[in-house]
């Protein structure tokens, strides 16, 4: 799911870059930094989670996003 959202905003010339936890979304995938918000909104909707502004601004890599989503979905699991 997260991979699909990231792929949507990746520029064509970077589409063959391997997505690993350390992949920097802006520098390595050419994603317009403003579009990070769109990725986050789509992910929030898909997983029914909410990310804080600080988390949105500090997320740089695929791993950062993955970690936020993982922690939020686990939290939901705990409270559910």
């Amino acid at each position, binding site marked *: 799911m997260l991979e699909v959202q990231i792929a*949507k*905003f*990746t*520029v*064509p*010339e970077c589409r063959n870059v391997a997505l690993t936890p350390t992949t920097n979304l802006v520098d390595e995938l050419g*994603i*317009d930094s*403003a*579009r*990070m*918000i*769109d990725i986050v*909104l789509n992910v929030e909707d898909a997983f029914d989670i909410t990310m804080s502004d600080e988390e949105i601004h500090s997320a740089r890599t695929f791993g950062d996003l993955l970690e936020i989503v993982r922690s939020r979905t686990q939290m939901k699991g705990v409270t559910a």
Partner: protein
Amino acid sequence: VITGLGVLSPIGHGLAEFAEGLREGRSGIRYEPELESLGFGCCVAGVPCGVEGLAARYFEPHVQIGMDRYATIGCIAGLDCWKDAGLPEPAKDRVDWDTSIVFGSGIGGIETIGRTLVPETDNRRARRLGSTIPERIMGSSVSARLAGILGAGGQVTSNSSACATGTEAIANAWWMVREGRARRVIAGGCEGASPYIWAGFDAMRVLSSRFNDAPSRASRPMSASAGGFVPAGGGAALMLEDLDTALQRGARIYAEIAGGAVNCGGHRNGGTMTAANAEGARRCIRGAVDSAKIGADEIDLISGHLTATAADPMEAANWRAALNLPAEQFPLINAPKSLFGHTLGAAGAIESVACVLQLYRGFVHPSINCEDVHPELGWCERSIPRTAVERDLEIVAKASFGFGDVNACIVFRRWKN
């Protein structure tokens, strides 16, 4: 000189289709069910076909999401113009400091405003709008987007002067080249096809409403039965280049801009926000002709603003007074809006492309739907071509007049090698 053209209009996309539509006098006006369902008096419009499919061909999805429909139309025309000028594929890692852009619109990204921004904001979902709203609705959306795609590093700006926008953009670009501030400028105008643009004009009762059942007859400039303009969308661009640069790279030259003028009637002597001060319009035409250093009798064709409202007879009278020619020497005059309606901020650009094509290919497009010429235009009836005229032209004058009492006029001259 003009070295490239691009157009996306209700009568066609691309120069071949557009020129064919002009020559055939083809109407691009169709019945629009959405307008009827919204309770408009005018239920016909000129809408460019296949924009969605073109958008998918021209722009990556991650680019498209930042574009309102008006910007999509404008950028397609701008990119076509670049390609038509024979300029190379833009480099991804280099800025082209020699290219500037002046690309205007009368209204802008109102589809995004009306369908997304306002409802979502009112629904307390401002924080769910995503990142693209500012770039979709900003007035410079088209020039900025084109700059990004082409890597343009000169002045990149957008003008807005209502229905004179497109012609004004060309005049501004011409001055930039003449002053040596730019070696080449993409000059253009575009407008979306949106009920949100047209509703206010429908409310003013200035749109055609009597030919909803006969769309191809609805746009009737210079006709006694004209009852308002037919709204339309579209976009066009012209590549203006300084002569040395064009010659150096062996560019094809379509025509040259011989003169131009832009002014305002100052909302005096009959001029208002929505009506023209006749003297302002006349001075603008005279200014353009004088700057071209030609005699009025050298003009072969006038491409009028001529919207099919009550202003048509006054416009023709202004041309006559400004040129100070007897009726029998009055040049041919045609109304491009008779074919594709009034594209508002795009009008001057699309109609200027029509002027250049007529100069370059040697024809005059027909002015349709004025079989019953307005009684106040009897004096120039013989100057109105009802069918295409095959003729080599030397000078074509194009004018646009807009709300705000603004005027713009360009004189195009056939290029002789």
